[in-house]
């Protein structure tokens, strides 16, 4: 298959599947078509990803407007993984809702359609070489997913939706200003106006860009995309949206939508660094936002009563950790990308569990009512407990390894302040979340609801991510390591940073 077609199909398949979902006659066919669309995309996507990551090609299509290099391939892989898991889960989740007759055919048609279109929009973000189109993709994800929050119309979900659209649209509008300024900074550089917005062009000519304008651009971009990525202090929409959306939607929000926005920032990092003469100006800014996010989340995690809100604040913390890693550079970039995969997997699992446990106790996510979740549903109880343990960085899980690498990066760089604040934040989260998790797992159940039996599929949904996380915590496969290095090299400027990595991993 030639590249032109592959990249085109990756965008077109989910787009068409989404529209076809609107025409489906029954709940089952709509969900089935949605899964078929997602898995079909995933199979083709894997071909493209292997060709990029292991054969070291860079795929171009549509006159260089679409491309896939190591960084986009790696992120695309994470996204496909999350979408495949969440699609299976949404079948399980909505089947339970159907049994309670909570769901009409129109709601499920809308859901499946928007689900596929959200996949399309995020694919466009990851594959576009044109920074303008990348912006269009991010804004499109906001608009498409807004309705996903409101699958069940209620006062709370409307409130969450309004905050989400307004805050994110305004934030992303700032990112648009940043994109314009970045294009303006290239004015007068001789590469013909036609290519001014192409990432590859800006990257190659980064040294010639106007430093003042690119700095101004980066501030706008960081605030704009940072809003969408849920970095504090622009995070206020995030806990509301995550807690009100149906569980599968929260899973993709947290599992990939936030990362997609951060991916956009990652794209600009090498440009800004080169244009400002490798002064780490941009990196420090990102690290600062990362630390603020970690600290903010740490404080709020202590006082949560709603399980999904708790998990939402965990997302803010982990996105902060990823941003901090990105800001440290060197090994930190590697750790940040590795942490992306770990966090996405773990957070997806925990939202799955929160959703199913909520259904088991009758549609609430109050942690008090969920006490003793091991007895309410053994499989999902283990799921939520282990995933919270993993989220707070307990040893054998992969999140511990990536956070450890991050610490190492901070020590290597001599960033003492970041190091101390990160440890402080992680410590508060550790204590706070553990305090929530223990009664959640073993407390005395409130309801006398019968123990809900989990099907085989649910069993797989819990233990597949958990075993991947455990495996990655103990042993890092060589292909993954080289893929991570290749994509980190796209962000990093210096070659020496990547050389120091070889064999230096735990």
């Amino acid at each position, binding site marked *: 298959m030639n590249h032109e077609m592959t990249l085109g199909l990756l965008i077109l398949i989910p787009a068409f599947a989404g529209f076809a979902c609107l025409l489906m006659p029954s709940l089952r066919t709509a969900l089935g078509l949605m899964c078929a669309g997602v898995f079909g995309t995933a199979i083709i996507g894997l071909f493209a990803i292997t060709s990029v990551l292991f054969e070291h090609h860079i795929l171009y299509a549509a006159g260089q407007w679409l491309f896939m290099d190591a960084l986009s391939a790696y992120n695309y892989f994470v996204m496909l993984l999350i979408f495949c898991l969440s699609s299976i889960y949404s079948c399980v989740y909505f089947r339970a809702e159907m049994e309670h007759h909570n769901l009409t055919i129109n709601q499920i048609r809308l859901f499946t359609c928007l689900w596929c279109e959200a996949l399309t929009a995020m694919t466009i973000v990851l594959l576009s070489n044109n920074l303008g189109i990348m912006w269009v993709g991010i804004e499109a994800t906001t608009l498409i997913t807004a309705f996903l929050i409101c699958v069940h119309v209620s006062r709370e979900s*409307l409130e*969450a939706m309004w905050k989400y659209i307004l805050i994110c649209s305004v934030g992303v509008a700032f990112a648009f200003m940043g994109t314009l300024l970045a294009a303006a900074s290239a004015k007068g550089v001789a590469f013909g106006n036609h290519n001014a917005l192409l990432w590859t062009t800006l990257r190659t000519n980064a040294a010639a860009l106007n430093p003042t304008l690119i700095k101004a651009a980066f501030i706008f971009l960081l605030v704009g995309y940072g809003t969408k990525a849920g970095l504090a202090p622009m995070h206020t929409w995030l806990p509301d949206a995550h807690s009100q959306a149906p569980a599968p939607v929260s899973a993709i929000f947290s599992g990939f939508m936030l990362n997609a926005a951060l991916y956009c920032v990652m794209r600009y990092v090498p440009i800004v660094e080169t244009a400002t003469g490798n002064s780490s100006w941009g990196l420090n800014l990102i690290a600062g936002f990362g630390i603020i996010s970690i600290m903010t989340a740490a404080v709020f995690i202590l006082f949560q009563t709603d399980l999904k809100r708790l998990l939402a604040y965990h997302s803010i913390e982990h996105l902060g950790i990823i941003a901090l890693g990105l800001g440290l550079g060197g090994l930190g970039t590697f750790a940040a990308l590795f942490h992306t995969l770990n966090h996405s997997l773990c957070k997806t699992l925990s939202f799955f569990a929160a959703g199913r446990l909520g259904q088991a106790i009758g549609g609430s996510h109050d942690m008090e009512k969920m006490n003793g979740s091991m007895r309410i549903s053994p499989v999902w109880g283990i799921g939520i407990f282990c995933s919270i343990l993993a989220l707070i960085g307990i040893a054998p899980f992969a999140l511990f390894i990536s956070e450890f690498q991050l610490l190492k990066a901070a020590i290597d760089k001599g960033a003492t302040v970041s190091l101390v604040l990160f440890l402080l934040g992680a410590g508060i989260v550790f204590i706070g979340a553990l305090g929530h998790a223990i009664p959640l797992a073993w407390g005395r159940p409130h309801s006398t609801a019968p123990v809900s039996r989990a099907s085989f599929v649910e069993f797989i949904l819990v233990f597949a991510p958990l075993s991947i996380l455990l495996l990655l915590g103990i042993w890092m496969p060589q292909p993954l390591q080289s893929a991570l290095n290749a994509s980190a090299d796209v962000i990093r400027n210096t070659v020496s940073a990547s050389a120091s990595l070889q064999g230096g991993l735990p």
Partner: protein
Amino acid sequence: MDSTIEIIMILLVLSDMALLGLSRLRACISIVSFQGMLMGLLVLIAHSSSMTPRLIIIAAVSFMIKGFVFPYLLRRGIREAGTQHESEPFVGYIMSIISGVVMLGISLWLGEKLPLLAALSGSSLVIPAALTTLFTGLFLIVARRNALNQCLGYIILENGIYTVGVVSVVEIPFLVELGIMLDVFVAVFVMGIAIYNINREFDHLDSDRLNNLKG
């Protein structure tokens, strides 16, 4: 050509001030519609020396969407909600206008600080006017309670950014431009639907009373 651009910029700033001082939502919408038409004209005038079919299409699309479609959507929103006035904004109207003047001052100062951007745009008024519009949009979003006014604020904010885009960056590819237009259009559309649902569910549009979710 330059003097025409400057006239448009002055009209832009004046319409910002009017928006800050008006309480009747219907009048606010008319002003946003007027600003939208200005945006369409701006595209034509800023590039009048090199007119291409591409430019004419973009100008026409933005003239129609911002000048007619948005106002139509918003007016329908008002009709359904039955609210005519902003009830007790957080910041009074006199104070709003004074803040508007302060924002204009800050924008002029920032425009001086970014000489390169001003040089690109060819007129020293463009950047201050665009920034004033951007700040006005933000101000409306923060200082007004009514969800409809916040939606207007978003449109104004977008207009401000659009002005910078039109005047200072010559070549945004056609497809990107259309994508952006589509996104903004859908954003306002989605906000319209959200407003409709909020009104149906809550019987009011006061966004500060949307406060069930906390912490």
